């Protein structure tokens, strides 16, 4: 067993390395030597991991920074993804040590965030027909990347003139409009390409060329480069398949590495206890984490039950109060007026109910991510002539009209929300204006 594994391991590691993108591809030896924690290997490993993580986090290829910046970046990314091993965070910033820890971290990332799959997806040869679709509900705790704000430095006091803010706001709006025009142009030109090349493609289902293919026709001398990219991608994908079959061997190997480290680590564990707490701003190490999670789940379910009971009580209470009110109202008003009023309130209630059900309904899987645009001729509806309908294929397809409809619904609900917020704001302004002497508030 061991011997078989021993033979398969170099193959697995080699496949793994081949599946990584060309610019950040280690030699298989590097990985194996990393477990021995040699200083020369360490800085190389840091740099490797840094370039891999940068690619995953959407950064373009830039010149490598200094080693301590790279190390800080890697540590923050690992922290972001929840890597809780304190030994890594304690590694020095000059890159002289830690190749074994890095090996562990790398393997953890492979598994945890599907590093390999992400890298492969990012480095695909583009067809140019991609578009991103997102019908997700807005998450307030959305992307945290790149949220740097540069405060205006010139102001002497700490105040900013409101006119400057209006200026910036106006610039933002104009830039948005330019972006909108850019998108429109892209769609228009893409449509032209698809329309003019309809029927020319070898793949009868697709039927038309993509942007990359059209570009190739215009400038045939670029075929060499495209061919290179395709070959490289094919090789990576084949290596990935190979890797998938030999994976187990690799994980067994990682277990041995961990065992080794655990033996060494248990000797100096006692000292680490309190330093660990100071390193990690939010406590819990991996061991406590699972237990606390279970506790949290229990607490949440209990809270949910109590809230549910309270709601039930409230509802029955309100219903009875409401019936009382209705009876008294009915007596007050005459029959016809009451009917009209009842109808109006019913309509308003229905609208609100629709809104609520929409919000509380079990979410249909929201579309998110990039898709390829495929052109279909006009036999299915669509007044604007951009008919792209569903085709019955095994790959998941969705029609553009569906996406448009969903986005329109979302737009309508956002507009309603905006109106509501504006109304609230208006009322608040009126209240404030009443309190001040000689001030009239004219709202737009």
């Amino acid at each position: 067993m061991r011997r078989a594994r021993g033979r398969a391991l170099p193959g697995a590691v080699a496949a793994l390395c081949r599946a990584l993108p060309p610019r950040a591809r280690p030699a298989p030896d590097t990985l194996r030597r990393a477990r021995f924690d040699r200083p020369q290997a360490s800085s190389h490993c840091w740099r490797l991991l840094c370039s891999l993580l940068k690619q995953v986090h959407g950064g373009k290829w830039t010149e490598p920074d200094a080693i301590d910046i790279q190390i800080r970046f890697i540590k923050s990314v690992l922290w972001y993804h929840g890597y809780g091993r304190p030994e890594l965070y304690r590694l020095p910033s000059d890159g002289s040590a830690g190749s074994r820890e890095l090996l562990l971290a790398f393997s953890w990332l492979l598994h945890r965030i599907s590093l390999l799959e992400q890298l492969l997806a990012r480095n695909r040869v583009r067809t140019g027909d991609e578009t991103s679709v997102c019908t997700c509900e807005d998450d307030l705790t959305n992307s945290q990347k790149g949220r740097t704000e540069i405060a205006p430095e010139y102001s002497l006091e700490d105040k900013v003139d409101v006119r400057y803010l209006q200026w910036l706001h106006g610039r933002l709006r104009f830039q948005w409009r330019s972006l909108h025009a850019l998108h429109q142009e892209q769609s228009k030109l893409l449509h032209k390409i698809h329309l003019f090349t309809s029927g020319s493609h070898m793949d009868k289902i697709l039927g038309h060329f993509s942007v990359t293919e059209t570009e190739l026709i215009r400038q045939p001398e670029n075929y060499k480069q495209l061919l290179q990219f395709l070959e490289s991608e094919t090789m990576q994908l084949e290596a990935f398949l190979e890797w998938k079959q030999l994976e187990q061997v690799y994980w067994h190997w990682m277990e041995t590495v961990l065992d080794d480290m655990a033996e060494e680590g248990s000797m100096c564990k006692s000292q680490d206890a309190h330093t660990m707490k100071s390193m990690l701003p939010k406590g819990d190490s991996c061991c406590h984490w699972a237990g606390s999670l279970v506790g949290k789940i229990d607490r949440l379910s209990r809270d949910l039950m109590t809230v549910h009971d309270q709601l039930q009580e409230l509802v029955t209470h309100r219903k009875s109060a409401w019936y009382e009110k209705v009876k008294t109202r009915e007596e007050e008003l005459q029959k016809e007026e009451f009917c009209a009023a009842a109808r109006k309130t019913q309509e308003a209630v229905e609208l609100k109910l629709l809104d609520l059900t929409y919000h509380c309904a079990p979410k249909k899987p929201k579309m998110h991510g990039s898709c390829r645009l495929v052109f279909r001729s006009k036999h299915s509806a669509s007044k604007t002539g951009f008919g792209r309908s569903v085709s019955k294929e095994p790959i998941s397809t969705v029609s553009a009209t569906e996406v448009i409809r969903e986005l329109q619904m979302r737009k309508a609900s956002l507009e309603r929300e905006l109106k509501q917020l504006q109304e609230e704001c208006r009322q608040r302004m009126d209240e404030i204006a009443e309190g001040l002497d000689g001030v009239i508030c004219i709202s737009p």
Partner: protein
Amino acid sequence: MSIVTVQLGQCGNQIGHEVFNAICSDVHGTHGLCSKKENESYHEASKERFFSEEKSGVPVARAVLVDMEPKVISQTLSIAARSGCWKYDDRSHFCQKQGSGNNWANGYSVHGPKHKDRIMNLVRKEAEKCDRLSGFFTIMSMAGGTGSGLGAFVTQCLKDAFPASFILNHVIWPYGTGEVIVQNYNSVLTLSHLYRSSDALLVHENDVIHKICAQLMNIKQISFRDVNQVIAHQLGSVFQPIYTGAGPLHYSRSPLGDLMETLVPHPEFKMLGLRNIPQMPENSLAYSTFSWPGLIKHLRQMLIANATMEEGIDWQVRPPRPGSSIPSKHSTSKSLHFNTSIANLVLLRGKDMHSADLGSFQDPALYTSWLNPQDAFNLWKTPRAFNKYEKSAALVSNSQFLLKPLDNLVGKAWNMFASKAYIHQYTKFGIEEEDFLDSFTALEQVISSYTTL
């Protein structure tokens, strides 16, 4: 990156025609003074921007011509077609049999709604021809009836129909001693309505251009054609392709968008003035030499002293020294002499433009206190010379240039309004006194915003 021009009224159509003429002759001229590659990409960009391809090979201007009388439009169409260089689309025009009688209300409340669908259809067709619409450029005069009233209505419709596109209104400020009695009413109503729907108002004053023709161009008998040609030259120097970014990778792909973003993001400040140097008769060009430092110095002083051309500049006017005067409250005396800017855009065209030093434009004293020069000042340039001038510089400025004319205009209009002169001509078409009052309020607000810079 295409601009659709909407030519409104007699003035708008005549000027629009000259603008396309100037652009075409600049593009086809042999005076580019730059590399062949540069010239070709300039040519392509300019054509894409203003003309569309037709099967006949003659470029067709991206324009819609609107007027209530047929005479000017038919003249414009035929002159353009005869030139052989370019032409208008034969179907892209709209006219009627009778004019608007210099009545703003007639143009806005009667002709506008009546012909809205047909006019907007023409605009939509032109917009669809563009691969990418940068925005709309409307040309109109404020004094008449069609250009001003119908123009204001059309601008509103454009805004409603194309909410994401940019709209730049080119407005001709009438002669102070103009022939139309009610031009002040028309102007006030036009400006206040345009302020609501348009993104920016680029103003040319007839008096100023007339002076340029007389003093700089040495024209003895100044005709409207001469005035229009000067205006066209100035507009061309702004709208022809130019590099806006730090690196000259490609010509700006969004001319109107970039212009708006640098100059008018603030919704209260939309009035733009335009200065261009040098201006001289064509036959003197061969004997003149230009230097960037000289041009820039003159341009800067023209900005500060609110001069309209490079002769007769008041060199005594200086920017206030920092800390010497308290802004805003005491700015009345300051504003009579020194022109405070909100934002400035300088466009340099010609040889060696990279050697030009524009540090003097980045002096914070030139600008209002709440905006710093990095945000307020922008420089665009291209080595390709424009319209036979070896070196030329243009300044588009969002500053107090138009404060005095605006103030005068509103003052005169208010005096007429106070005595209710000629109001019945407007009320009979649906513009009530209340609408007048709203317009006055809006313009007073603009004047006050600009005064307290």
